[in-house]
């Protein structure tokens, strides 16, 4: 085999690079524009430390579930049952912890396992029996909503033990006493995160340059990393000015990193995209498509359970209303974040940005005093608009 002489040696110009990657940056730019818009419209309330912490807490479970939903959507399926499953698991946790007094750690493990089993049950119908996922999970949505009301007896159970509440409303333990209202440990954690990201980017760029395949212009690379440092640093600063870093933010960050890695760098991740892009072709390339679809549903079930636990801990009670309508926010986050309804396309970072885009809009509109009625109208239009822009971009 001859060595390739056509390797891309000269990186393209910044403008053409930006054009090619508009799809990726477009989402982020939209999020920044919306943040700036509400920051001005709310007279600076949006980015007050208390409010930033709130936005993170309010959207944590949407983000967690969106990670699983993204993979389900990428394989070309959908899961409508996540809201009901999250609510059911919350109820189950309440029953076990509050009514039966079981240790919180045991309950968490048991709940995640039950979530996985629920996912496995639905995944079995979808993957092995080839029943359309829309129908299987629509049934699941009804079944688990009903089961939840049955186990709670249409009452709220609470309060949870304080240690369980920490899952949602706890903050990272400060090692050094706070100085000037700033929670040092949290701030340092944030800075460390930013530095890890930048070090990784530099290492990866170096490696690519040494193989002559870097495509990103240098100026662009520098600007991007400065923005990461500034952005992450600023958010860390804001959060550290309130009460420090919430525990759930750490969980979220770890999960986002793990699922980003899984989807972009691993064989399994690659195979999931192949199944969604063309299931028959994937199968004829030796990929076990049925098993992969099944596993994405198991994964979704576990993440829905985790989401349910976070919500329960945040509300400090298991209520029959918990989880209602979550599936819509979660699915919307994925589609706003650029996932394709036809499968095969979508990114973890996109889904996360999509979730926060919805979250910032919810929060900003509430501060502005816009009624829940028009909030829904606006969110619906944003979802439609985002997908239209995406479809238009792909047709070009």
């Amino acid at each position: 085999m001859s060595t390739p002489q056509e390797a891309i040696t000269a990186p393209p110009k910044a403008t053409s690079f930006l054009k090619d990657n508009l799809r990726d940056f477009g989402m982020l730019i939209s999020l920044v524009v919306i943040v700036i818009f509400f920051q001005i419209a709310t007279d600076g309330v949006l980015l007050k430390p208390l409010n930033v912490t709130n936005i993170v807490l309010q959207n944590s479970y949407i983000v967690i579930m969106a990670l699983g939903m993204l993979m389900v959507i990428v394989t070309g399926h959908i899961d409508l049952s996540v809201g009901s499953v999250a609510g059911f698991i919350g109820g189950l946790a309440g029953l076990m912890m509050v009514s039966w007094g079981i240790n919180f750690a045991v309950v968490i493990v048991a709940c995640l396992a039950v979530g996985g089993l629920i996912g496995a049950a639905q995944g079995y119908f979808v993957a092995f029996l080839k029943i359309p996922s829309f129908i299987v999970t629509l049934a699941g949505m009804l079944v688990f909503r009903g089961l939840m009301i049955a186990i709670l007896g249409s009452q709220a159970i609470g309060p949870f033990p304080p240690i369980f509440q920490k899952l949602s409303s706890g903050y990272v333990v400060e090692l050094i006493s706070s100085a000037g209202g700033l929670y040092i440990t949290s701030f340092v954690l944030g800075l460390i995160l930013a530095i890890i990201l930048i070090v990784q980017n530099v290492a990866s760029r170096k490696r690519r340059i040494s193989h002559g395949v870097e495509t990103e212009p240098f100026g662009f690379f520098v600007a991007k990393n400065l923005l990461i440092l500034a952005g992450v640093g600023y958010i860390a600063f804001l959060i550290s000015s309130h009460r420090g870093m919430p525990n759930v933010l750490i969980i979220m960050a770890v999960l986002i990193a793990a699922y980003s890695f899984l989807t972009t760098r691993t064989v399994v991740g690659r195979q999931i995209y192949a199944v969604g892009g063309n299931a028959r072709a994937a199968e004829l390339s030796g990929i076990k498509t049925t098993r992969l679809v099944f596993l994405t549903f198991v994964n979704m079930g576990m993440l829905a359970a985790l989401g349910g636990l976070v919500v329960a801990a945040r509300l400090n009670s298991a209520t029959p209303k918990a989880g209602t309508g979550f599936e819509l926010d979660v699915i919307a986050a994925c589609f706003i974040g650029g996932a394709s309804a036809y499968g095969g396309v979508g990114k973890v970072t996109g889904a996360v940005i999509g979730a926060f885009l919805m979250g910032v809009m919810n929060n900003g509109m509430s501060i502005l005093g816009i009624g829940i009625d028009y909030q829904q109208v606006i969110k619906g239009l944003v979802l439609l608009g985002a997908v239209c822009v995406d479809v238009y971009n792909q047709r070009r």
Partner: protein
Amino acid sequence: MLDPVPLAERPPILEMRGISKSFGAVKALSDVSFTVQEGEIHALVGENGAGKSTLMKVLSGVYPHGSYEGSILFAGEERHFRDINDSEKLGIIIIHQELALIPLMSIAENIFLTNPPARHGVIDRSERHKRTQALLAKVGLTEQPDTLITNIGVGKQQLVEIAKALSKDVRLLILDEPTASLNETDSAALLELLKEFRRNGITSIMISHKLNEITEVADRITVLRDGRTVGTMDCHAGPVDEDEIVRRMVDRDLESRYPKRDPKIGDVIFEVENWSAYHPQHSDRQVVKNVSLKVRAGEIVGISGLMGAGRTEFAMSLFGRSWGRHITGTAKMHGKELDLSDVHKAIKAGLAYVTEDRKQLGLILPEDIRKNVSLAHLGGVSSRGVIDDIAEMKVAQEFRARMRIRSHNVYQETGKLSGGNQQKVVLSKWLFTGPEVLILDEPTRGIDVGAKYEIYTIINELADAGKAVVVISSEMPELIGICDRIMVMHEGAFVGEVSGEEATQENIMRAIMRRKGRE
């Protein structure tokens, strides 16, 4: 009511003048002129990609007026069709190769799909039933009008399509490869029907590759080549020689179409014995019948046969049981029996299968070249389940250079490549798995002559590298041009074997026909 006036002196029903049509930089038709006389059967022939279908799409309004140059005169008037409804209103009906019937609807519902007999918007079922019966009688079908399409064979479905055309007061009937998927009896019946239509004054245009059928029924033959009219032959002026048609169609000798090769054939490496498979839905239909095949290192073996002979089904049932059920038989590599129970195992055993349908079954179209090339052998670019993106990129670049894939870089979406380049990506994917046996199903379908030559060159290189290559193709000249040995498949079984030197279209067809004679 045979017209006594000689054909050429009758007024033309259709005149297409100076038609040119481009897709981007590709010129599909350039200055094509095409005239059809009233009441004749006019055959339109040419190689794949010669522009036959494009010309018919221009005629029927699929490509609307304004998207092409030139003019169309139908029944003496210039026409500007905006869509297919405009041309249908004038009685120009086109029947495509892929039948456009709805399988789970009845014959009557299909025939009157767009214009059912109705009173005040309510469909008059008994009227529809009556009219359908009359139409079916005209095409020689005895089926009940409420029989579902899915329950009748392809040959009868073709006749239903024609009945549907008749329901629309057809003046010009266009048939695109009407007999391609029909057996001999059904084909003969269809040709008889066309002759009867001619007696009733209906004009037909027939696109076909089957030259014997054309010389049997056609009044005149127009040959297209590379988007241009080569000429029109009058079958009444004197006997038309099939070789003459071929010469006009191809205009290049077979030699230059296929790269030269000096076969170096070694020992048998791949052996299939008594391979059988049944249809996945109709479990009593045996589609592959006790097929045995031996392929040697460095050998290119062709599998020839008519559409529906079971060639693809044989290959796919072999390749990890991707098709069919109740699959039996043994497969051996270097004398050792193989476990081919799923695709993953088949790949591991050293098999590769390049599908006939690269868009539906071969490629992940929204993904780039790099990801498609590595897909069947991700283990080769990863360690402990983590992909090494640099290694992967290098593999893709190597194949891009070796296969001469024309693209900006390896990050280009495969959906945006040309057919020939897409096929090279699929081939790259399978070569990267390091196979010993390659089964190529219609490897050059729908790609242009230049790219075909390149694909043949790659196939030759593979054989020269000691691989065993099996090529399935419906184009006999292609098999004759590149294969060392050709197996003839008919109705699920191998019915003949011809060596590369003595292979001609005639003796392959004869092998099929002999078998038919015995049935």
